[in-house]
């Protein structure tokens, strides 16, 4: 027997660990990511690689500076996942420094400054995305239609190097709007939804991923399946995604019913942009979401409502990042007011009393 007999119980443990959680999330992201990398070709692959490398490097340096042991914290995979999620929110052909600056913002400002893993108030990837969007609006809103790897229109390896690492001037020629961006522009020109829909991506395109958008905004179907995989693996629960998508669909449905000419329908809202990615992978981020079931439902519903409000009434065509960050800020409050009911007590915390109800049933 070893010398330290007072190590606390239990003396058995579920097969869980932080790195297992992170690896499962990355595994879930893999199919959609691979599809996106295929659809957007070499520039996307370069950007993705650069962003992930920068995130891990930033984490290593931060750990070094804060005097923490780098090994266990790097191996937990959280920095890799943050970089991954950030990369998915970037325009696929964005220049390399967008990825690097984003990764630094996410890891250093979004996470390590708060005290490292588990301490951050806001989703680090969203901190970076929002900061990038506000600081570099041009680079962050230049989208291009998918040109699958090895297809005729796809840029070659060297050409791709110059897209990612060179000057990004040539991109303008082939840029294209995202579905939500398209509707926003057309509606502001006074067109109705029906008129605008002619040029927009079809729902089918959005489902499969063959549409312009950020790296991770492509295949709603694959992301949905991956999200369900995470629920099945019990990494996340259904509460936040369902509440978020349900609220979004509900709002879109109501407005669309009232005035179908001005308001986009619920299916387009669900299938386009980062709705699915956000609902299953961003809003559910463990550290920054509430811990109780009721709290999670409220959090999800808040995210859905804010996404709809921002998409429909604000200046930006997409609002997942803003919505999630605003709700992140509410998480401590939600956690404070919405706790599970304690066994043997009422919701108010008083011991149950059967006598007052006139004896038990």
């Amino acid at each position, binding site marked *: *027997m*070893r010398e330290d*007999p*007072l*190590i*606390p*119980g*239990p*003396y*058995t*443990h*579920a*097969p*869980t*660990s*932080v790195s*297992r*959680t992170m690896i499962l999330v990355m595994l879930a992201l893999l199919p959609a990511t691979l599809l996106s990398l295929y659809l957007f070709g070499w520039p996307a692959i370069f950007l993705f690689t650069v962003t992930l490398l920068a995130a891990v490097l930033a984490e290593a340096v931060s750990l070094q500076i804060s005097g923490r042991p780098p090994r*266990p914290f790097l191996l*937990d995979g*959280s920095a890799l996942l943050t970089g991954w999620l950030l990369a998915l929110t970037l325009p696929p052909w964005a220049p390399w420094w967008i990825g690097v600056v984003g990764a630094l913002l996410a890891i250093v400002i979004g996470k390590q400054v708060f005290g*490292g*893993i*588990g*301490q951050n108030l806001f989703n680090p990837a969203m901190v970076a995305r929002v900061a990038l969007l506000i600081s570099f609006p041009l680079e962050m809103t230049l989208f291009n239609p998918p040109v699958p790897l090895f297809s005729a229109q796809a840029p070659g390896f060297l050409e791709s190097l110059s897209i990612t690492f060179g000057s990004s001037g040539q991109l303008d020629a082939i840029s294209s709007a995202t579905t939500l961006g398209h509707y926003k522009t057309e509606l502001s020109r006074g067109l109705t939804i029906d008129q605008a829909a002619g040029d927009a991506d079809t729902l089918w395109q959005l489902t499969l991923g063959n549409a312009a958008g950020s790296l991770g905004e492509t295949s709603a179907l694959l992301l949905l399946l991956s999200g369900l995989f995470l629920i099945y693996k019990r990494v996340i*629960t259904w509460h936040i995604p369902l509440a978020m998508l349900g609220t979004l669909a509900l709002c879109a449905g109501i407005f669309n019913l009232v005035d179908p000419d001005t308001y986009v329908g619920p299916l387009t809202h669900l299938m386009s942009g980062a709705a699915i990615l956000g609902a299953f992978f961003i809003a559910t981020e*463990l*550290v*920054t*979401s509430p*811990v*109780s079931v009721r709290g999670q439902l409220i959090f999800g519903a808040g995210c859905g409502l804010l996404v709809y409000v921002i998409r429909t009434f604000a200046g930006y065509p997409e609002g997942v990042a803003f919505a999630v960050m605003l709700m992140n800020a509410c998480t401590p409050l939600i*956690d404070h007011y919405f*706790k*599970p*009911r*304690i*066994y*043997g*007590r009422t919701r108010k*915390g008083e*011991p*149950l*009393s*059967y006598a007052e109800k006139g004896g*038990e049933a």
Partner: protein
Amino acid sequence: MSSGKLIKLFKIRGGVHPDDRKSLSAEQPIENLPMPDLLHIPLQQHIGAPANPLVRRGELVKKGQLLARSQGAISAPVHAPTSGRIMGVGGYPAHHASGLSVRTITLKPDGNDEWGDIPEPATEPFTLSPEEIAQRVAQAGIVGMGGATFPSAVKLNLRKRYELNTLIINGAECEPYLTCDDRLMREQPEEILDGVALMACALSVEKVLFAIENNKPMAQAAIKQASRGHPNITMVGLPTRYPMGSEKHLVQTLTGQETPARGLTADIGIVVHNVATALAVHDALRHGRPLISRVMTVSGNAICNPRNLRVPLGTPLESLIEYCGGYRQEPARLISGGPMMGQPLPSTRVPAVKGSNGLLALTDIEIQAAPEMPCIRCASCVQACPCGLVPLEMAANIRAGGLDNSVSLGLLDCIACGSCSYVCPSHIPLVQYFNFAKGELASRQRTQHKQGEIKRLAEARTVRMEATKKAKREAMMKRKKEMEEKKQREAEAAAAAEAQA
């Protein structure tokens, strides 16, 4: 009507599904452990006041003889597990993680195992009054044998203060590895049910539910078979989930009712007893035998031959390990009880006691220990907590020294089941935080109580001193006055005498 009836089960919150690893020992019939060379019988093997020793060094005792008498309302006596000579009454390492020395009677068996004078078996125990049954249970030194070791007779007397309607027998045995109750139910179902019927009689309740988890189909079948002779006893299969054996959660599963916070199950008319306790009650009333041995599971992958053993109380645990063929490999941990709520043992010299249900020698692979990482707020602990607490928040408060905050978050509603620690991906010893905080709280309350008492005594003393001083002063004044009066009288008398003269 008893066995075929279906009982509606209710859902409990949270819980976990640890690998039960019962197959290691589940098929091993109960064997009697040979009498060891020395028995170390602690005076306190129960919750409450320690027993008061009645024997002295060198005395010869018979099997079943009373060695120490219970003292106080909540206590239990201790009997001799075999005949032999008392070697002494003194300190010996306790069956406890601390390994601290506690008062223990050391008995050297003489090998004859000769019974002494034990109470006459009750010929017709069902004609006894509830008080008499409870008294015989108290005399036999029976305590809750599921591990809580609360004196059983006190629980049988709850009828005096509560309106009881149901007795629930806890055969859940939800801790992994442990199979001692499983084996007892398979091998002695008739005796157990007789004990159950006697307890129901003592409690004056009509309805008895015998609850067994569904991972013990053989035990369920045996109890179901035996319960044909007892129309008021119903066997109920429970879903396999930890902590199903927690008294309050068992009651909720079977009745849908929650026990009010800080209350007893008796508040909702229910008393819960363990399977092994029922057998001990049977032995006490039918055979007059006090509680001098118990069945323990010796298991874990570090043990050569896991077994279920009937162990005389006071047997050093090393005898059990030796009987099971010793270690297959050096164990990483020695645990008393199950792996979820069990305690680490400091040494194998410590004795088996009334509350020991298991002795586990676990390997590193079984324990799955890993270094602690920061909390990632994944809420696994919130989902797993059967009590509806937020363990991560309580632990964060305790870590920051916010003991009062943790109490308002429900620290005292925690049953220390360990489900939160079990699921934590960061391997944070959550339940350890809570146990520590409860200990801190208790010691703070003791200190406060002590300070209060000191203050009260000091104030009383001041008042007393004041009163004495005042009394003294008054007495002095009185004397002075008397003296003056006397002087005056004398002066007057002298003046009068002078005047006469």
